[in-house]
């Protein structure tokens, strides 16, 4: 069940985990992709990403490695771990239930 007090943190987590489910990304790339995919609705200051990424990494949900991309600088690239994939599935379910209940209340109020 989603904790209403930590909705913003949980939202950031699920956004990052779902973006990483498509493949490894580095920090800057993650911020840009989330912003583009959401049409600018979710805009991260890149510097604010680090606490979220490092927390997820400490929890074993993502893994960060310094990778050597051909002809480019080394970058810290994050990928989803098996535990991260499980957490993502759970979070998607929790968010679906959350929005279902939320709209039940909102739509009822409108009628």
């Amino acid at each position, binding site marked *: 069940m989603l904790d209403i007090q930590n909705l913003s943190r949980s939202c950031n987590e699920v956004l990052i985990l779902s973006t990483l489910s498509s493949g490894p990304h580095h920090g*800057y790339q993650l911020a840009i992709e989330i912003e583009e995919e959401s049409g600018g609705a979710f805009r991260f200051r*890149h*510097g604010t990403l680090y606490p979220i990424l490092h*927390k997820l990494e400490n929890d074993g949900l993502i893994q960060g490695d310094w990778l050597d991309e051909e002809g480019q600088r080394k970058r810290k690239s994050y990928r989803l771990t098996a535990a991260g994939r499980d957490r993502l599935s759970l979070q998607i379910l929790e968010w679906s239930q959350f929005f279902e209940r939320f709209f039940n209340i909102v739509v009822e109020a409108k009628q």
Partner: protein
Amino acid sequence: MKRFAHVLNAARGQLKIPEPSRTRVLLEMASDLEDSYQFHLSQGCDETEAVRRAEEAFGTSEEALKHLTRIHESSLGGMQDRLSGQIGTAWEKLILLAIVAFEILATVKIVSHQAFFMFLSPFLWPIAALALAALVFTAWKLYQIFGRRGSDVRQIRSGLGALLFFAGASLAVTGCGFLFHLQRFFRHNWESAPDSLFVNFAGWMATMSFMMILGLMLAMLTALFWFVLLHLAARTERREIEALLGTEA
């Protein structure tokens, strides 16, 4: 990448975590800032504008840095970093070197002792294999740090935990070996020589102690290698970030 030195220096001042963790966070920030800068250049901005936009998009808040501090303070990596950061002065380095040298000499002394070969337990082979693996791994890491040109400072740290695994495994094999031979000793001596059990046991302990001391020494030596490499990795990372920040000594 010195163009972002003031942003990174400001973040460095606010991150109250052990130096090795702080250096790694700053290296990551520097890399992302550079990516952002390159992106804005590719969009047609001039250099000054690209730097301004990269800094604007970056925007670490005080709250974010405090959060980052809390995460790294409580992590296992943070604890390791506090440990490796304790070797700073020349005296501390000298003492560490003396301990390593003593450990190596004591291990060689045990192995070269005649009594060591009187009882060669089969458990010695896995202990020797673990020690050899630790030695090869340490030599490879030292080569990465000192010998190989173009080796990446960010990858020096990778896999260092394997040394702790070797040390733990060495201890576990030594413990298992001791228990195995202990139960064998009592099984053989309990009925055949109950009167001289304790005399025989003292003799058995003297023979066994070589294997046990060797196992413990090798485990300690492996753990010391891990500690030294952790310290060297932290020092190399610190030099890299100091070059980026323009604060080299």
